[in-house]
Protein backbone atom coordinates (compact mmCIF):
# COMPACT_ATOMS: atom_id res chain seq x y z
CA UNK A 1 0.00 0.00 0.00
CA UNK A 2 1.33 3.48 -0.88
CA UNK A 3 2.46 5.67 2.02
CA UNK A 4 0.22 8.60 1.14
CA UNK A 5 -3.12 8.06 -0.57
CA UNK A 6 -5.09 11.10 -1.69
CA UNK A 7 -8.49 10.06 -3.00
CA UNK A 8 -10.87 12.40 -4.82
CA UNK A 9 -10.21 15.35 -2.52
CA UNK A 10 -12.32 18.49 -2.80
CA UNK A 11 -11.71 21.71 -0.90
CA UNK A 12 -13.88 24.81 -0.75
CA UNK A 13 -12.91 28.15 0.75
CA UNK A 14 -16.39 29.66 0.95
CA UNK A 15 -17.61 29.90 -2.64
CA UNK A 16 -14.10 29.24 -3.94
CA UNK A 17 -13.66 25.65 -5.13
CA UNK A 18 -9.89 25.24 -4.70
CA UNK A 19 -9.41 21.49 -5.08
CA UNK A 20 -11.70 19.71 -7.52
CA UNK A 21 -11.23 16.00 -7.03
CA UNK A 22 -7.51 15.38 -6.60
CA UNK A 23 -6.31 11.77 -6.44
CA UNK A 24 -2.67 10.84 -5.95
CA UNK A 25 -0.69 7.97 -4.45
CA UNK A 26 2.83 8.33 -3.16
CA UNK A 27 5.04 5.36 -2.39
CA UNK A 28 7.43 5.27 0.54
CA UNK A 29 10.74 6.77 -0.55
CA UNK A 30 9.26 8.63 -3.48
CA UNK A 31 10.18 12.26 -4.10
CA UNK A 32 7.36 14.27 -5.62
CA UNK A 33 7.44 17.83 -6.90
CA UNK A 34 4.14 19.68 -7.17
CA UNK A 35 4.27 22.63 -9.54
CA UNK A 36 1.71 25.04 -10.94
CA UNK A 37 0.63 28.67 -11.00
CA UNK A 38 -0.31 30.45 -7.80
CA UNK A 39 -3.94 29.71 -7.06
CA UNK A 40 -3.76 26.28 -8.68
CA UNK A 41 -4.33 24.63 -5.31
CA UNK A 42 -0.88 23.10 -4.86
CA UNK A 43 -0.16 24.55 -1.42
CA UNK A 44 -3.70 23.81 -0.26
CA UNK A 45 -3.28 20.19 -1.32
CA UNK A 46 -0.07 19.94 0.67
CA UNK A 47 -1.69 21.51 3.74
CA UNK A 48 -4.57 19.03 3.54
CA UNK A 49 -2.16 16.11 3.85
CA UNK A 50 -1.29 16.96 7.47
CA UNK A 51 -4.67 18.41 8.33
CA UNK A 52 -3.72 22.10 8.47
CA UNK A 53 -6.66 22.52 6.09
CA UNK A 54 -9.78 20.42 6.42
CA UNK A 55 -11.00 18.66 3.31
CA UNK A 56 -14.58 19.16 2.14
CA UNK A 57 -14.90 15.80 0.42
CA UNK A 58 -12.80 12.72 -0.33
CA UNK A 59 -10.12 11.17 1.87
CA UNK A 60 -6.41 11.21 2.61
CA UNK A 61 -4.50 8.53 4.49
CA UNK A 62 -0.87 8.53 5.54
CA UNK A 63 0.61 5.19 6.53
CA UNK A 64 -2.99 3.97 6.90
CA UNK A 65 -3.91 6.75 9.33
CA UNK A 66 -6.78 8.79 7.88
CA UNK A 67 -6.68 12.59 8.00
CA UNK A 68 -9.62 13.57 10.17
CA UNK A 69 -10.74 16.51 12.24
CA UNK A 70 -10.46 14.44 15.41
CA UNK A 71 -7.71 15.99 17.55
CA UNK A 72 -6.15 12.71 18.71
CA UNK A 73 -6.10 11.14 15.23
CA UNK A 74 -4.71 14.34 13.79
CA UNK A 75 -1.80 14.33 16.21
CA UNK A 76 -1.07 10.68 15.47
CA UNK A 77 -1.01 11.57 11.78
CA UNK A 78 1.27 14.54 12.33
CA UNK A 79 3.83 12.31 14.00
CA UNK A 80 4.10 10.59 10.62
CA UNK A 81 4.30 13.69 8.41
CA UNK A 82 6.57 16.64 9.08
CA UNK A 83 6.15 19.98 7.38
CA UNK A 84 8.56 22.73 6.34
CA UNK A 85 7.15 26.18 5.64
CA UNK A 86 8.05 29.02 3.33
CA UNK A 87 8.51 31.38 6.32
CA UNK A 88 10.56 28.86 8.40
CA UNK A 89 8.34 29.49 11.47
CA UNK A 90 11.07 28.79 13.99
CA UNK A 91 10.05 29.56 17.57
CA UNK A 92 11.81 32.94 18.04
CA UNK A 93 12.08 32.70 21.84
CA UNK A 94 14.02 29.41 21.74
CA UNK A 95 17.56 28.67 20.57
CA UNK A 96 18.09 26.53 17.47
CA UNK A 97 18.77 23.51 19.67
CA UNK A 98 15.68 24.09 21.86
CA UNK A 99 13.59 24.47 18.69
CA UNK A 100 14.63 20.97 17.69
CA UNK A 101 14.18 19.59 21.23
CA UNK A 102 10.80 21.07 22.14
CA UNK A 103 8.33 18.78 20.40
CA UNK A 104 10.41 15.70 21.22
CA UNK A 105 10.12 16.56 24.90
CA UNK A 106 6.55 17.80 24.90
CA UNK A 107 4.91 15.41 22.44
CA UNK A 108 7.05 12.29 22.60
CA UNK A 109 8.08 12.80 26.25
CA UNK A 110 11.69 12.12 25.30
CA UNK A 111 14.09 12.67 28.22
CA UNK A 112 16.03 15.93 28.04
CA UNK A 113 19.48 14.45 27.43
CA UNK A 114 18.17 12.11 24.77
CA UNK A 115 16.27 14.95 23.08
CA UNK A 116 19.43 17.04 23.14
CA UNK A 117 21.48 14.22 21.65
CA UNK A 118 18.95 13.84 18.82
CA UNK A 119 18.84 17.62 18.34
CA UNK A 120 22.64 17.84 18.02
CA UNK A 121 22.59 14.90 15.65
CA UNK A 122 19.88 16.49 13.47
CA UNK A 123 21.54 19.91 13.46
CA UNK A 124 24.73 18.14 12.37
CA UNK A 125 22.85 16.48 9.53
CA UNK A 126 21.81 19.89 8.17
CA UNK A 127 25.33 21.29 8.65
CA UNK A 128 24.58 23.43 11.70
CA UNK A 129 26.16 21.46 14.54
CA UNK A 130 27.86 24.58 15.88
CA UNK A 131 24.63 26.63 15.96
CA UNK A 132 22.92 24.72 18.78
CA UNK A 133 22.81 27.77 21.07
CA UNK A 134 22.17 30.41 18.41
CA UNK A 135 18.84 32.27 18.54
CA UNK A 136 16.80 32.26 15.32
CA UNK A 137 17.29 36.00 14.73
CA UNK A 138 21.05 35.46 14.73
CA UNK A 139 20.77 33.01 11.82
CA UNK A 140 20.48 33.67 8.08
CA UNK A 141 17.30 32.65 6.29
CA UNK A 142 19.02 29.59 4.85
CA UNK A 143 20.25 28.55 8.28
CA UNK A 144 16.81 29.10 9.82
CA UNK A 145 15.24 26.91 7.17
CA UNK A 146 17.81 24.19 7.82
CA UNK A 147 17.00 24.34 11.56
CA UNK A 148 13.33 23.96 10.61
CA UNK A 149 14.22 20.85 8.62
CA UNK A 150 16.20 19.47 11.59
CA UNK A 151 13.23 20.21 13.85
CA UNK A 152 10.89 18.22 11.60
CA UNK A 153 13.38 15.35 11.23
CA UNK A 154 13.83 15.05 14.99
CA UNK A 155 10.29 13.69 15.20
CA UNK A 156 11.33 10.87 12.85
CA UNK A 157 8.49 11.31 10.38
CA UNK A 158 7.73 8.89 7.55
CA UNK A 159 7.29 11.75 5.09
CA UNK A 160 8.08 15.46 4.79
CA UNK A 161 5.89 18.10 3.20
CA UNK A 162 7.82 21.10 1.85
CA UNK A 163 5.77 24.19 1.07
CA UNK A 164 7.86 26.45 -1.19
CA UNK A 165 10.69 26.19 1.28
CA UNK A 166 13.15 28.28 -0.75
CA UNK A 167 10.74 31.00 -1.94
CA UNK A 168 11.48 33.39 0.94
CA UNK A 169 15.25 33.01 0.65
CA UNK A 170 17.79 35.28 -0.99
CA UNK A 171 19.05 33.58 -4.15
CA UNK A 172 22.50 32.84 -2.75
CA UNK A 173 20.94 30.91 0.17
CA UNK A 174 18.71 28.64 -1.90
CA UNK A 175 21.34 26.04 -2.68
CA UNK A 176 22.35 25.29 0.89
CA UNK A 177 18.72 24.37 1.66
CA UNK A 178 18.27 22.38 -1.55
CA UNK A 179 21.47 20.47 -0.80
CA UNK A 180 19.94 19.32 2.50
CA UNK A 181 16.74 18.25 0.73
CA UNK A 182 18.75 16.41 -1.89
CA UNK A 183 20.63 14.53 0.84
CA UNK A 184 17.29 13.59 2.43
CA UNK A 185 15.99 12.33 -0.89
CA UNK A 186 19.15 10.26 -1.39
CA UNK A 187 18.71 8.81 2.10
CA UNK A 188 15.26 7.54 1.11
CA UNK A 189 12.96 10.07 2.79
CA UNK A 190 9.50 10.40 1.25
CA UNK A 191 9.12 13.99 0.10
CA UNK A 192 6.20 15.92 -1.30
CA UNK A 193 7.34 19.40 -2.23
CA UNK A 194 5.61 22.38 -3.72
CA UNK A 195 8.38 24.20 -5.50
CA UNK A 196 9.36 26.71 -8.15
CA UNK A 197 12.84 25.25 -8.50
CA UNK A 198 12.37 23.48 -11.84
CA UNK A 199 15.95 22.39 -12.23
CA UNK A 200 15.92 20.86 -8.76
CA UNK A 201 12.63 19.10 -9.50
CA UNK A 202 14.10 17.70 -12.68
CA UNK A 203 17.30 16.47 -11.04
CA UNK A 204 16.00 15.14 -7.74
CA UNK A 205 12.35 14.15 -8.04
CA UNK A 206 10.95 10.81 -9.14
CA UNK A 207 7.70 12.29 -10.34
CA UNK A 208 6.37 15.76 -11.09
CA UNK A 209 2.74 16.80 -10.65
CA UNK A 210 1.36 19.79 -12.51
CA UNK A 211 -1.65 21.33 -10.78
CA UNK A 212 -4.01 23.46 -12.82
CA UNK A 213 -7.33 24.94 -11.67
CA UNK A 214 -7.63 22.63 -8.68
CA UNK A 215 -6.83 19.41 -10.51
CA UNK A 216 -3.84 17.24 -11.28
CA UNK A 217 -3.50 18.28 -14.88
CA UNK A 218 -0.43 16.33 -15.94
CA UNK A 219 2.02 14.07 -14.24
CA UNK A 220 5.11 12.16 -15.26
CA UNK A 221 8.74 11.27 -14.72
CA UNK A 222 10.80 14.47 -14.79
CA UNK A 223 12.71 13.90 -18.06
CA UNK A 224 9.59 13.13 -20.04
CA UNK A 225 7.57 15.76 -18.18
CA UNK A 226 9.94 18.65 -18.82
CA UNK A 227 11.17 17.68 -22.30
CA UNK A 228 7.86 16.64 -23.82
CA UNK A 229 4.96 18.24 -21.91
CA UNK A 230 1.72 16.89 -23.36
CA UNK A 231 -0.94 19.45 -22.45
CA UNK A 232 -0.89 23.02 -23.78
CA UNK A 233 -1.35 24.33 -20.19
CA UNK A 234 1.85 22.69 -18.99
CA UNK A 235 3.69 23.81 -22.15
CA UNK A 236 2.57 27.34 -21.49
CA UNK A 237 3.50 27.15 -17.77
CA UNK A 238 6.96 25.76 -18.47
CA UNK A 239 7.43 28.43 -21.14
CA UNK A 240 6.58 31.13 -18.62
CA UNK A 241 8.91 29.70 -15.97
CA UNK A 242 11.78 29.34 -18.45
CA UNK A 243 11.38 32.87 -19.80
Amino acid at each position, binding site marked *: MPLIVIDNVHKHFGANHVLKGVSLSIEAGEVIAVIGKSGSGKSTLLRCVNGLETISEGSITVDEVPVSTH*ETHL*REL*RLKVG*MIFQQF*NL*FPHLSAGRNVMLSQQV*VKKTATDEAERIARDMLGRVGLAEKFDAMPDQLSGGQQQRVAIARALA*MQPRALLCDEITSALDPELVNEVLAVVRALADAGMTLMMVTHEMRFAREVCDRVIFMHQGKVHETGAPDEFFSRPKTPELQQFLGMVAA
Partner: protein
Amino acid sequence: MSDFTLWDIARGLLLSARWTIALSLVAFIGGGVVGLLVLLLRTGRGHALPVAARTYIELFQGTPLLMQLFIAFFGLSLLGVDTTPWGAAGLALTLWASAFLAEIWRGCVDAVPRGQWEASSSLAMGYLQQMRHVVLPQAMRIAIAPTVGFSVQVIKGTALASIIGFMEISKAGTIITNATFKPFTVYAMVAALYFILCWPLSRLAKHLERKLNAAHRH
Protein backbone atom coordinates in the same frame (compact mmCIF):
# COMPACT_ATOMS: atom_id res chain seq x y z
CA MET B 1 -15.54 68.16 69.70
CA SER B 2 -11.90 67.32 69.26
CA ASP B 3 -9.66 69.01 66.71
CA PHE B 4 -8.15 66.93 63.97
CA THR B 5 -4.63 67.79 62.91
CA LEU B 6 -3.51 67.13 59.36
CA TRP B 7 -1.45 64.25 60.70
CA ASP B 8 -4.54 62.65 62.24
CA ILE B 9 -6.27 62.78 58.89
CA ALA B 10 -3.24 61.51 57.01
CA ARG B 11 -2.73 58.65 59.47
CA GLY B 12 -6.33 57.54 59.16
CA LEU B 13 -6.09 57.56 55.37
CA LEU B 14 -2.72 55.83 55.31
CA LEU B 15 -3.99 53.03 57.55
CA SER B 16 -6.95 52.47 55.24
CA ALA B 17 -4.62 52.45 52.22
CA ARG B 18 -3.55 48.99 53.37
CA TRP B 19 -7.01 47.76 52.47
CA THR B 20 -6.96 49.46 49.08
CA ILE B 21 -3.67 47.71 48.37
CA ALA B 22 -4.92 44.37 49.73
CA LEU B 23 -8.12 44.50 47.68
CA SER B 24 -6.14 45.55 44.59
CA LEU B 25 -3.78 42.60 44.99
CA VAL B 26 -6.65 40.15 45.49
CA ALA B 27 -8.46 41.50 42.43
CA PHE B 28 -5.35 41.61 40.28
CA ILE B 29 -3.98 38.18 41.19
CA GLY B 30 -7.41 36.53 41.32
CA GLY B 31 -8.35 38.28 38.10
CA GLY B 32 -5.13 37.07 36.52
CA VAL B 33 -5.79 33.43 37.41
CA VAL B 34 -9.46 33.48 36.35
CA GLY B 35 -8.51 35.61 33.32
CA LEU B 36 -6.02 33.00 32.17
CA LEU B 37 -8.72 30.32 32.32
CA VAL B 38 -11.14 32.55 30.40
CA LEU B 39 -8.37 33.24 27.85
CA LEU B 40 -7.75 29.51 27.32
CA LEU B 41 -11.48 28.92 26.79
CA ARG B 42 -11.77 31.99 24.57
CA THR B 43 -8.93 31.05 22.20
CA GLY B 44 -9.47 27.28 22.43
CA ARG B 45 -10.92 24.79 20.03
CA GLY B 46 -14.56 24.04 19.48
CA HIS B 47 -17.50 26.40 19.42
CA ALA B 48 -19.44 26.40 22.70
CA LEU B 49 -16.60 27.25 25.08
CA PRO B 50 -15.18 30.21 23.10
CA VAL B 51 -18.71 31.64 22.78
CA ALA B 52 -19.31 31.19 26.51
CA ALA B 53 -16.01 32.91 27.30
CA ARG B 54 -16.79 35.77 24.92
CA THR B 55 -20.21 36.24 26.53
CA TYR B 56 -18.58 36.31 29.97
CA ILE B 57 -16.13 39.00 28.80
CA GLU B 58 -18.87 41.06 27.16
CA LEU B 59 -21.11 40.89 30.24
CA PHE B 60 -18.44 42.25 32.55
CA GLN B 61 -17.19 44.82 30.06
CA GLY B 62 -20.72 45.94 29.19
CA THR B 63 -21.98 46.65 32.71
CA PRO B 64 -20.73 49.17 35.28
CA LEU B 65 -18.40 47.84 37.95
CA LEU B 66 -20.69 49.49 40.51
CA MET B 67 -23.61 47.27 39.42
CA GLN B 68 -21.38 44.21 39.65
CA LEU B 69 -20.49 45.19 43.21
CA PHE B 70 -24.16 45.68 44.12
CA ILE B 71 -25.11 42.35 42.62
CA ALA B 72 -22.29 40.56 44.43
CA PHE B 73 -23.19 42.23 47.73
CA PHE B 74 -27.00 42.32 47.74
CA GLY B 75 -27.69 39.58 45.20
CA LEU B 76 -25.67 36.95 47.00
CA SER B 77 -27.24 37.75 50.35
CA LEU B 78 -30.71 37.45 48.75
CA LEU B 79 -29.66 33.97 47.68
CA GLY B 80 -28.89 33.23 51.31
CA VAL B 81 -25.11 33.48 50.93
CA ASP B 82 -23.61 35.29 53.87
CA THR B 83 -21.65 38.14 52.29
CA THR B 84 -19.24 40.58 53.84
CA PRO B 85 -18.04 43.76 52.13
CA TRP B 86 -14.61 42.08 51.84
CA GLY B 87 -15.97 38.95 50.18
CA ALA B 88 -18.33 40.77 47.84
CA ALA B 89 -15.74 43.37 46.80
CA GLY B 90 -13.05 40.74 46.32
CA LEU B 91 -15.37 38.57 44.24
CA ALA B 92 -16.76 41.35 42.06
CA LEU B 93 -13.38 42.96 41.38
CA THR B 94 -11.76 39.60 40.65
CA LEU B 95 -14.40 38.68 38.06
CA TRP B 96 -14.35 42.21 36.59
CA ALA B 97 -10.55 42.19 36.29
CA SER B 98 -10.55 38.66 34.83
CA ALA B 99 -12.80 39.75 31.96
CA PHE B 100 -10.60 42.72 31.06
CA LEU B 101 -7.33 40.80 31.45
CA ALA B 102 -8.66 37.92 29.32
CA GLU B 103 -9.53 40.38 26.58
CA ILE B 104 -6.19 42.21 26.78
CA TRP B 105 -4.34 38.90 26.63
CA ARG B 106 -6.47 37.60 23.78
CA GLY B 107 -5.25 40.54 21.71
CA CYS B 108 -1.67 39.58 22.58
CA VAL B 109 -2.27 35.93 21.65
CA ASP B 110 -3.79 37.04 18.34
CA ALA B 111 -0.66 39.09 17.66
CA VAL B 112 1.48 35.93 17.60
CA PRO B 113 1.84 35.00 13.90
CA ARG B 114 -0.33 32.18 12.58
CA GLY B 115 2.79 30.40 11.37
CA GLN B 116 3.71 29.68 15.00
CA TRP B 117 0.43 27.78 15.47
CA GLU B 118 0.88 25.94 12.19
CA ALA B 119 4.48 24.97 12.89
CA SER B 120 3.66 23.67 16.37
CA SER B 121 0.54 21.90 15.07
CA SER B 122 2.56 20.16 12.39
CA LEU B 123 4.92 18.96 15.12
CA ALA B 124 1.91 17.16 16.67
CA MET B 125 1.55 19.50 19.66
CA GLY B 126 -1.87 19.83 21.27
CA TYR B 127 -3.58 23.13 22.07
CA LEU B 128 -2.39 23.44 25.67
CA GLN B 129 1.15 22.44 24.71
CA GLN B 130 1.17 25.05 21.94
CA MET B 131 -0.14 27.69 24.31
CA ARG B 132 2.29 26.90 27.09
CA HIS B 133 5.50 26.39 25.11
CA VAL B 134 5.06 28.43 21.93
CA VAL B 135 2.31 31.05 22.01
CA LEU B 136 2.14 32.37 25.58
CA PRO B 137 5.91 32.94 25.94
CA GLN B 138 5.71 35.19 22.88
CA ALA B 139 2.38 36.79 23.80
CA MET B 140 3.66 37.56 27.31
CA ARG B 141 6.27 39.98 25.98
CA ILE B 142 3.53 41.98 24.31
CA ALA B 143 1.19 41.63 27.28
CA ILE B 144 3.44 42.95 30.04
CA ALA B 145 2.99 46.67 29.38
CA PRO B 146 -0.83 46.71 28.96
CA THR B 147 -1.21 44.35 31.95
CA VAL B 148 0.76 46.66 34.22
CA GLY B 149 -1.27 49.54 32.77
CA PHE B 150 -4.48 47.74 33.70
CA SER B 151 -3.34 47.34 37.31
CA VAL B 152 -3.90 51.13 37.59
CA GLN B 153 -7.54 50.60 36.60
CA VAL B 154 -7.85 47.93 39.30
CA ILE B 155 -6.56 50.27 42.02
CA LYS B 156 -8.94 53.02 40.97
CA GLY B 157 -11.74 50.46 40.68
CA THR B 158 -11.38 49.55 44.35
CA ALA B 159 -12.71 53.04 45.23
CA LEU B 160 -16.18 51.83 44.26
CA ALA B 161 -16.05 49.16 46.95
CA SER B 162 -16.51 51.99 49.48
CA ILE B 163 -20.17 52.10 48.46
CA ILE B 164 -20.86 48.60 49.80
CA GLY B 165 -19.06 49.54 53.02
CA PHE B 166 -15.57 48.24 52.34
CA MET B 167 -13.17 50.31 54.43
CA GLU B 168 -10.51 51.46 51.96
CA ILE B 169 -9.14 54.94 51.25
CA SER B 170 -12.30 56.44 49.77
CA LYS B 171 -14.53 55.10 52.53
CA ALA B 172 -12.08 56.34 55.16
CA GLY B 173 -12.10 59.72 53.42
CA THR B 174 -15.88 59.94 53.67
CA ILE B 175 -15.88 59.01 57.34
CA ILE B 176 -13.10 61.46 58.19
CA THR B 177 -14.87 64.21 56.21
CA ASN B 178 -18.03 63.63 58.24
CA ALA B 179 -16.05 64.03 61.42
CA THR B 180 -13.86 66.97 60.41
CA PHE B 181 -16.03 68.92 57.97
CA LYS B 182 -12.92 69.46 55.83
CA PRO B 183 -13.96 67.79 52.58
CA PHE B 184 -11.49 69.61 50.39
CA THR B 185 -8.45 68.78 52.53
CA VAL B 186 -9.49 65.18 53.05
CA TYR B 187 -10.42 64.37 49.47
CA ALA B 188 -7.31 66.14 48.14
CA MET B 189 -5.28 63.83 50.35
CA VAL B 190 -7.32 60.82 49.18
CA ALA B 191 -6.64 61.77 45.57
CA ALA B 192 -2.95 62.26 46.35
CA LEU B 193 -2.77 58.77 47.86
CA TYR B 194 -4.32 57.19 44.75
CA PHE B 195 -1.90 59.14 42.63
CA ILE B 196 1.08 57.91 44.66
CA LEU B 197 -0.12 54.33 44.16
CA CYS B 198 -0.99 54.65 40.48
CA TRP B 199 1.60 56.98 39.01
CA PRO B 200 4.64 54.68 39.40
CA LEU B 201 2.65 51.86 37.77
CA SER B 202 1.70 54.10 34.83
CA ARG B 203 5.32 55.11 34.41
CA LEU B 204 6.44 51.49 34.65
CA ALA B 205 3.92 50.49 31.96
CA LYS B 206 5.17 53.25 29.64
CA HIS B 207 8.77 52.30 30.29
CA LEU B 208 8.13 48.60 29.63
CA GLU B 209 6.24 49.42 26.47
CA ARG B 210 9.14 51.47 25.11
CA LYS B 211 11.73 48.92 26.17
CA LEU B 212 9.93 45.87 24.82
CA ASN B 213 9.08 47.65 21.57
CA ALA B 214 12.69 48.64 21.09
CA ALA B 215 13.81 45.09 21.79
CA HIS B 216 11.19 43.87 19.35
CA ARG B 217 12.39 46.14 16.56
CA HIS B 218 15.94 44.99 17.05
